């Protein structure tokens, strides 16, 4: 599904990713953990195609394509989804219409018929229950006046509607209380299947109590310095990151 080889990336001239390797197969859930400033968010942004993240070396192959050559919208059409760490507010752009346009852009790309208003509404009603979205939030402008938790839930809501092949969650759990965290985890778990891959970028082990990853990676200094199974996360929770850094050094 996703294959990252020796990835180097700069932001504002500063090298953040320094030779990152990662391989994600279909149906797998990967957790990427690491201290602040290790490059976790940069990785998520490079994969989604944000301007200003300059890839200086390395390759990223997604579903057989050179991902780095695609525009952000082309990546979205091809089934890649980024749940933002800080979702922006977009005054004047209606949530529901954005979603409808997004769904239909993806369907069009896949050669499927576009959803009409009735079909789309049915889809929304179904998915709203999973993330417990309130209807009144839906009809507002994108994220406008949403609380931090509501913004994160909206990301998961969008994800569940777009049904991506590869979802990258950039610290979606940060700042959430336990109830909101459970809702987010439920949303993610409901999407898990053998064709879909998920990358959870997180700072806290707590999320992994609710979503069980197949692989856990530690990102530090722009590289993955250790990989393991889900028990690695528990070890990190107990001992912090320093022991790995020492082990690697």
């Amino acid at each position, binding site marked *: 599904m996703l294959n990252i080889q020796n990835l180097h990336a700069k932001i504002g001239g500063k090298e953040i990713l320094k030779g990152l390797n990662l391989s994600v197969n279909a149906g797998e859930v990967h957790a990427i953990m690491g201290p602040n400033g290790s490059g976790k968010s940069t990785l998520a942004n490079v994969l989604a195609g944000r301007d200003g993240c300059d890839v200086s070396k390395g390759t990223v192959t997604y579903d057989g394509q050179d991902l780095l050559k695609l525009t*952000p*919208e082309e990546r*979205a059409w091809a089934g890649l989804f980024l749940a933002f760490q800080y979702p922006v507010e*977009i*005054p004047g752009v209606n949530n529901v219409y954005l979603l*409808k346009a*997004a769904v239909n*852009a993806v369907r069009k*790309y896949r050669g499927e018929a576009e959803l009409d208003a009735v079909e789309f509404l049915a889809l929304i009603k179904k998915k709203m229950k999973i993330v417990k979205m309130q209807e009144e939030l839906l009809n507002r402008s994108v994220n406008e006046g949403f609380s931090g938790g509501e913004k994160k839930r909206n990301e998961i809501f969008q994800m569940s509607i777009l049904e991506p092949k590869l979802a990258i969650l950039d610290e979606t759990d940060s700042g959430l209380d336990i109830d909101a965290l459970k809702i987010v985890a439920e949303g993610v778990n409901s999407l898990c299947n053998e064709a879909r891959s998920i990358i959870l970028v997180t700072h806290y082990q707590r999320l992994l109590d609710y979503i069980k990853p197949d692989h856990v990676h530690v990102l530090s200094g722009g590289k993955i310095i250790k990989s393991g199974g889900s028990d690695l996360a528990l070890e990190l929770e107990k001992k912090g990151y320093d022991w790995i850094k020492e082990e690697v050094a």
Partner: protein
Amino acid sequence: MSTGIEHYLSDFEQLENDDWFSENRQSALDVFKESGFPNARLEDWKYTDVRPIKKKKFSSVNKTPVSMRADEIDALRFQGLDCIDLVFINGVFAKEYSNIEPLEEGLIIENMQDALAKDKDFLANHLAKYADDNSSPFTALNTAFIQNGAFINVSPDVVIEKPVNILYLSKTNGSPLATHPRNLIVVGENAEMTVIESYIGHGQANYFTNAVTEATLSANAHLKHYKIQQESLNAYHIGNLIALQSRDSNLESHSISLGGALVRNDIHGKLAAEGAQIVMNGLYMTDNKQHVDNHTRVDHLKPHTSSTENYRGILNGKSRAVFNGKVVVHKNAQKIEAHQNNANLLLSNDAEIDTKPELEIYADDVKCSHGATVGQLDQKMLFYLRSRAIDEQTARSLLTYAFADELISSIGLGPIRHQLEQLIIGQLPEATLIREFTHE
């Protein structure tokens, strides 16, 4: 005497000027004769060069009346708006297309020419009493040619639910025309009404509109004033709105500028008694080589008055816009509030905006704020939309529309709001795609 204005003087000679107002016209002409057109040395006209208007020999005498078909005119009305209509074609009142009768009790609406003949005593107290011919040569020129325009008078305690829509249509053929529409709106104590001035040009018509509107609001009067400027892209438009506000009166002004090659809008609110409030909203969209200048001025003459101003601009191509918002807080006008904001979106590298908020404060207990921003589309928003499968072009249009809609959405009259939304979308690339987003 100034040069380059001879044809205005000879046109004046052909004007029917034998009524009780003739001396006023003559003295206004004398003011214009003395000043001529304003030049860039004047602070007020620093960024707007009116030489193109001066060079073109516009005729103020309409010798060849142009007819328009009824369906042509109907297409230019606000769909779904139940209103009183006054239609002017090339500056001349077109009674056959207007829809005034039957008038509600307490409301008078007449073409200015008829009002001059019928309501001498009333008009003598109001006409040209609020707009100062010395404030701008264009105002003086307008006063000299007063003939057509809307006279609207609402009696005290009368609330007029139906908006009055004044349509100024220009469709010149033959020699380019200058028109000088003059409107007078008198709103009595506790009275309320809505007036829309709509300026629409046909195709690529070349003409010059020089409009002046005077409004006076008695105590606790409410006036909502809309000006929607869609002149042709070869037209010149100079427009002035002057309002004198009494105690607790409330003026809400919306000024939307979409057309015109060279446009100047002036709004001047005089808050002359305690409790008077003015709200000024404006939107200008420019492209190609358009030049649009918005000048506003509020005089806080008495304590406890308030003004709120919010203007937004979207500039594309090689266009240029000017915003100058002046707030003068006079001596002893304590406890006033004045807030002003001007935000601009530059869509091209060649577009230019000159924005200047001006505060002159001679009182010491006031609450004032002002701000101006100039920027491009927000990169974070753009990336967010693109990551949600929206292609770049549509995302740009959508954000541009959303920027304009923050102003448009404050318009209370549904049919006007809706039509403006469609007009604005129509000016954006990918119009059909973003129309999908805006269903209410």
